[in-house]
């Protein structure tokens, strides 16, 4: 039986693809983005997260935490277990909605991913993936209805500095995925002080324009909502400023796909 380590399943997601969606968060990621708002998605094994403000000092940690101050993040799940909430949400998907495979990096657990995609397809459910494209499994991607791929930073030196890997293989994977015939949505998180320049965005836009199956280019403003999770994992969060509305407007003007 195929099993994956999953750290969350979000029901009725409104912002992770078209329509109403169920988002499956795969645990484990090869990248280390400094602004990551899901740092608990990095490791491929379950991890304890500790929220001191929830601790009531009852001293009964051994019985399992009563207050949620200590939480185990990530559990092995079968396809059947993941499909249960998906099937419960299915009536709400309508024509557009469906399942979004997210993470972490879903392509890092290809056997399970493949089985889950097959199970969704058998139910006639729209499938989308949110992927870094740091790994590439065309045999799975080709079955999907939508690929949402990040191009985080165009300058490779900066990419290596802030993401922990070169962007060359990522770009290569996206180019090859473009040949699969699946609609591609390119996305960039806008991180002030890192990639919030017209040069960066324009370069990525031009890359997106060179693809034939691209359906959009989206900019996602950085938000600091993952900070408490960094702390819960015992790490000091790296802080960035939040882009202003005006800044986002200016950058979005550079990100227009149609020439």
């Amino acid at each position, binding site marked *: 039986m195929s099993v994956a380590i999953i750290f969350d399943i979000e*029901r009725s997601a409104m912002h992770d693809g078209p329509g109403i969606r169920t988002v499956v968060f795969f645990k484990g990621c090869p990248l280390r983005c400094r602004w990551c708002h899901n740092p608990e998605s990095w490791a491929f094994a379950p991890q304890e997260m500790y929220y001191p403000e929830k601790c*009531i000092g*009852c001293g009964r940690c051994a019985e399992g935490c*009563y207050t949620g101050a200590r939480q185990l993040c990530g559990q092995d799940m079968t396809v059947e277990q993941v499909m249960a909430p998906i099937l419960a949400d299915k009536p*709400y998907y*309508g024509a557009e909605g469906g399942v979004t495979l997210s993470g972490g990096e879903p392509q890092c657990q290809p056997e399970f991913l493949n089985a889950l995609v097959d199970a969704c397809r058998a139910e006639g459910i729209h499938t989308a993936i949110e992927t870094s494209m740091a790994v590439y499994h065309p045999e799975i991607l080709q079955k999907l209805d939508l690929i949402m791929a990040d191009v985080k930073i165009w300058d490779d030196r900066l990419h290596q500095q802030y993401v922990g890997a070169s962007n060359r293989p990522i770009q290569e994977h996206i180019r090859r995925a473009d040949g699969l015939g699946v609609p591609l949505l390119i996305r960039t998180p806008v991180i002030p002080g890192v990639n919030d320049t017209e040069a960066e965005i324009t370069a990525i836009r031009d890359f997106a324009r060179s693809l034939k199956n691209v359906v959009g280019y989206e900019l996602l403003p950085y938000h600091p909502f993952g900070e408490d999770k960094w702390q819960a994992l015992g790490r000091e969060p790296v802080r960035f400023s939040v882009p202003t509305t005006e800044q986002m407007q200016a950058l979005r003007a550079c990100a227009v796909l149609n020439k």
Partner: protein
Amino acid sequence: MEAKKLLRYGVEFTQRYRTATDKYTREAACLELQLRHSLLPMEPTDLVAGRHRRLPLGVLPQEFWGLGYYMDEAAFGALTRDETLSAPEQQQAQELIRFWHTENTRAKIVAAYPPEWTEEFACQVPYTTPTNGFLLHRISGIQMDPTRLLRLGVGGLLDLVREKSTGNPAFYAGVQQALLLLRDVCLRYADQAQQNGRPDLEADLRHIAWQPAATFRQALQLAYLFMVVSGTWNYGRMDQYLGAYLHRDLAAGTLTEEEALDLLSDLWCRIEERNDYFDSRVILGGCDRPKGADTFALLAMETTRRRRGVVPQLTLRCYTGMDRRLYDTALDVIGEGTTFPMLYNDDVNIPAVMDAFGVDAATAQGYVPFGCGEYVLCNQSIGTPSGTLHTLHVLNELLYGDRAEAFLTAADFEELYNRYLDRIRHLARYQAAHQKLEYDVCGRECAFLYFSIAFDDCLERGLGVLEGGLRHLGGTLEVYGNINAADSLTAIRRLVYQQHTVTPARMAEALRTDFAGQEPLRRLLLDQPKYGNDHPEADEMTARLHRDVCTIVRDCAPQTGLDSYLVVIINNELNAVFGTATGASADGRRAGQYMANGNNPMSGMDQKGVTALLNSLVKLDTHVHAGAVQNMRFSREMFTTLRPKLEGLLNTYFRRGGAQSMITVLSRGDLEAALKEPEKYRNLVVRVGGFSARFVDLQPVVQQELIRRTLY
């Protein structure tokens, strides 16, 4: 009313009451005096006549101070100390109080109670008394159809009554007097309109004093005056009885839509001035309406959008095949944060009403919510909630209260559960009997003449609504705390009977002491599955308890002599208020904390997303009760940029069996900000339970409960 005037009114009202020969003419005589004082003069700018105030002594189906013949003793008590009155006058006021203290209808109902009822239930406020429930006194939720009056006019109806004057002449004599009173009310207002220099209005009022309504203005005016003099606080299926008049006038060009909107706006004003935000329902929709009804419905929603008041409680009955414009407009108006209209799903509710009330499809087509959401059959049934049952308190008594041996000695969960149901059955029978007693005493004392004019069958049978005239005599029981009780049972079944991690004695002690030194246990209880998350175990327990309680109550009807007796889960704000007097519960709720509202999950406990919430909601059987409140709260974004997704959600919910939806639209942080700076949030309207309110006007315990509800 100033002191001397009030005393004179009281003396004369009492005199009329004492000298009448039968209850019908007595009521007509009392009403004549009462209406002269309760109906206020028109203001020069009024488009609709019928300003109205409450009086501290009178005869009405439902008032703050009672039902039938009622008195506000405090108001007359003030007269006994009033320095503008002479000593004999003060003495006179004292005598009035003494007389009405035992002669008011509520006192007569209470005097007939067997002692065991008051041992089990509380009878009067304050609502912060720990109790199994309250015995209430009111004939509320009258939903009438004035079509016959509009069509025949006062004169035509009088002719009809005269033809029928056989069998019970006193009844028909009372009815005739009531109709003549209505005529006089119209004529008095016509005189005022003349004085105010309003010839058009004067002509309309003179016309409807006797003739059938010929125009939209006349129909609206006559219907409203009839509703006000009748003493109802609900206004029926307005698009059904006014739609055709509107259609005709618009088509003939004698009325423009803007003029109609002005009229409705003034009517909404009159309704607001009556100041009853628990009632004041105006019903729109349903597939059996005449041409023009849709136009009326659209204008009514536009009026609400412009006025942004907390009443009327605009209600839209939706059905497959309804004009799409109605639904779109409804969502537009809701999206602006008005909380109206409330959406009811006829595709679900009509079959449900057929089963619950035991009526055919054509009859069920006339179902209407009143008040906070209880269903009645428009113009055919009364179903006032005359009692409350606190299922969580009843459970707590078995777990750690006076009947705690039930928990300590139960061999397994099923035994505990059955003991709980036995207790509910015992209490429900008392409440059902109480309902019938209330109707019987009221029927002996009052004819409620205007109801008897409108309701089907009364004129034909020659009987008042509560003495056999009514086609369907229903009753309802308000249930509180059922969701917390179900979540408590889920936790008990798991921890005590399946996992054996908590003993009954330890659980009882922790609950009795409000978890003193037992915070980890409370957290463990909070961590158990909760209704509202599409969790099979929690939802199954909730659905089971819901069905069992509703069925137990429904089955009380035959032995009581009621045509139906049904649970309503309408929870105005009392889920919060009753919560303050309810001990800790096994769902992890602290003593004194609010309880869940209606069929909603405990506030803040629905944590798996809106699809999970909606899935949970549709698991509760709708065919066994007479209305349950489902409040939902959405962010503004859902009604703007995400509107197609919102529509998808609601459509699926309704298709899968969602009975209704009451929607509040907010921005994140609105409520918290309103607590800090209430003056800036005067216009923030929220749906509480079965009513809407300005958030800043609510009691703190209710505000706290609302803040904890999940915003999707």
